[in-house]
């Protein structure tokens, strides 16, 4: 196209068509629902299919004989749910006193329990193509629990398998 000469209508429409083709989103791409939580200055995610409910971080009723990480129980509309402190399970420092929290009711296999996190950041649908295998260099216990890693706000965020997490916890404290 020579400078100074306006494009023809055909050229304009052709450019439009090209641009719209370039921005077409493949809506059929499979997506996975994730619950992104904030815990001790980092994000972690959980498969949405394993999270049954997100509750306020009410204190748990303490019970004697609880192994480390098991805070006690809470009453959820007439049902009892045990509550695990995810910070303890991941060997992270305990929260400051009176720090707000949330409890994710997670289910894995036949075991269901609450997981206490600092806060829930977002519930989002992530294209499966964005989920990559977790790095093999993860330390324990993350190595056993990580399903995948995906980019979130310019960071790599691990997706943890609640079923493996609860299964490992029960096995370790039988």
């Amino acid at each position, binding site marked *: 196209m020579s400078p100074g000469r306006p494009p023809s209508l055909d050229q304009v429409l052709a450019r439009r068509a090209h641009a719209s083709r370039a921005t077409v989103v493949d809506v059929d791409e499979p997506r996975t629902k994730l619950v992104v939580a904030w815990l001790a200055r980092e994000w972690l995610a959980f498969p949405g299919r394993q999270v049954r409910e997100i509750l306020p971080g009410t204190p748990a009723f303490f*019970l*004697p*004989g609880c192994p480390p990480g098991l805070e006690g*129980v809470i009453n959820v509309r*007439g049902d009892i749910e045990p509550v*695990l402190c995810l910070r303890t399970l991941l060997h992270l420092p305990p929260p400051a006193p009176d720090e707000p929290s949330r409890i994710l009711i997670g289910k894995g296999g036949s*075991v269901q329990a609450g997981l206490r996190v600092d806060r829930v950041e977002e519930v989002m649908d992530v294209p499966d193509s964005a989920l990559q295998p977790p790095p093999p260099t993860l330390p324990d216990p993350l190595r056993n629990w990580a399903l995948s890693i995906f980019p979130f706000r310019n960071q790599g965020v691990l997706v943890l398998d609640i079923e493996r997490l609860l299964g490992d*916890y029960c096995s370790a404290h*039988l």
Partner: protein
Amino acid sequence: MVPPDLGQESLPLVCFRAGGHLLAVEARHVVALGDSDDPTVPALAGRLGLPETHEDTPRLLAFRGADETPHWLAVGAPVRLEHWALTSIFPLPSLLAACLRVPGAVALALADQGACLILEPEGFLAPSSPSAGPGKERTP
């Protein structure tokens, strides 16, 4: 959700303390209550793996063993017969049933002020011979 058939019924529980925690057994498993400072009577807290706190007023409870003989164990006061609404009594969730380190724990009762583990005596009574009781005793 609360099963509708629980209604307004209640379950008699003998509540006491051990290792500083509130615990209970079904009243039908308790045959006698006694006062004694006999140091030879074992403490229930020890049987449960809980720290043995030095109670100011230890009480003795005779639990009914599988052989129907009384097994005396020291517990912490107060010892009370309470009727708990069935709606406040829950089976142990599977994670607790798998992980809780208290022999004989079978259920829990939940009230506004806290949780109370409900024990089955067969879980913490040693299969050995029944222990001798205190000099004075009375049923609760």
